[in-house]
């Protein structure tokens, strides 16, 4: 109990004293994950919607693959991205290993299947609801697509938020490809792992509270902006 209390105290202390390291680490966490979520959404939302709306031969296979990718352990993704980006790997010439960009790439790989899968599920449900109406009104393929994406926009936003949740708390992959280098690639989760390893539980917990606070704050902010709380129905 005292450790949690100490952690809370440490967190408040870090925040109210505008601890420069803490802000730097927190901002880097946000930068990495938000950038990854943007890329993942750009890829995953259209992909998921497409899979929900178009029938093609290998659709089932792609959906199954997506669900399998969703369960990939982040450390394995980290390892693969590491091998790709390491000096002897195919993308070694870009010198990206141990940079925030490498962490973003790893997170995009982890988050995209999740975003696509949730988007797929959501749009498929909406299509089932709207099917008879859209067919009856003779909506063209393009009109159907636009209607479903527009009316499903909140569900799509949820998919992105789920991606953010997965990314901001992820440690395995970014530890491997980022290396947890102070002032370069250290983020909240890797810092927590480090402090815990060193036995500084108060600081680790303090960082943990900051992490939770960030995740909740971002979710609330987005809901506020999109007005989901007001309208209730997704």
């Amino acid at each position, binding site marked *: 109990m005292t450790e949690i209390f100490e952690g809370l105290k440490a967190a408040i202390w870090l925040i109210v004293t505008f601890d420069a390291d803490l802000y730097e680490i927190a901002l880097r966490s946000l930068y990495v994950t938000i950038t990854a979520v943007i890329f993942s959404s750009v890829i995953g939302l259209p992909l998921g919607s497409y899979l929900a709306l178009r029938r093609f031969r290998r659709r089932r296979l792609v959906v199954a693959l997506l669900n399998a990718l969703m369960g990939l352990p982040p450390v394995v993704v980290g390892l693969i991205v590491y091998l790709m980006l390491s000096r002897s790997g195919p993308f070694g010439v870009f010198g990206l290993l141990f940079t925030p960009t490498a962490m973003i790439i790893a997170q995009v790989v982890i988050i995209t299947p999740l975003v696509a899968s949730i988007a797929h599920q959501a749009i498929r449900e*909406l299509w089932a*609801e*709207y099917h*008879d*109406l859209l*067919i*009856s*009104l*003779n*909506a063209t393929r393009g*009109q159907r697509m636009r*209607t479903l994406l527009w*009316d*499903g926009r*909140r569900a799509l936003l949820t998919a992105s938020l789920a991606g953010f949740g997965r990314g901001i708390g992820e440690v395995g992959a970014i530890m491997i490809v980022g290396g947890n280098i102070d002032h370069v690639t250290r983020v909240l989760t890797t810092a927590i792992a480090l402090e815990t390893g060193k036995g500084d539980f108060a600081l680790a917990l303090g960082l943990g509270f900051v992490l939770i606070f960030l995740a909740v704050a971002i979710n609330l902010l987005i809901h506020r902006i999109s007005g989901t709380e007001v*309208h*209730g*129905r*997704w």
Partner: protein
Amino acid sequence: MVGSIFPVEIADVTVRKRGQALLDGISLSLAPQGITIVMGPNGAGKSTLLKALHGMERLNGGHIQWSQPKSVTQKRQAFVFQTPILMRRPVIDNVAYPLTLRGVSSAEAREKARQWLERVKLGPAAHQHAAELSGGERQKMALARALIGEPELLFLDEPCANLDGRATREIEELLLVANADGTRIIMATHDMGQARRLADDVVFLNKAKLLEHADAQAFFESPTTPQAQAFLKGEIVE
């Protein structure tokens, strides 16, 4: 109007799903005016018949031939489904939706939607979210959405199933007005009183088969099949 979708030829229509016949050899001739009521016990095939006529069922036999090509025909028809389909939008945008699909500007579509909402007495709910409406209000919204496109033919699948007496009367009045303005109506209902009030002719289905198609008066006064006689007496139809 550029040429009516009537007359329609409905010959030997059969719809099967999972080996079971939902419609079995239905032939019908429908007059270009009036209100046709489709009756029959649960599972008789009423909804399936309406959807088939609307071009939403794949036929396993027979044919339905309207006097206009399929694309034109479906645009001149509207369908109110047994359970109202709610779009995740405000009520007014639900009603305006068919017009926006046709390329009407959103301002004009909303203005018309507002007028229709007044007519179905949903004016005050215009800016609520559709999911907030009561069961009866949802059905009125679906009716307004169907009528806004001024269809030549309107299908209704038990549109008053959840409505109280007053709301049912309101809808019936709207349907009579629409019909007087030239909208042909084909409607499935379980409500015997409603059928008597509205029907010009009655189609009676049982177990996927057409048992009777007659003038309303003839059907209610002297049904010819024992099944229809039993149905009208409120007995269980075998």
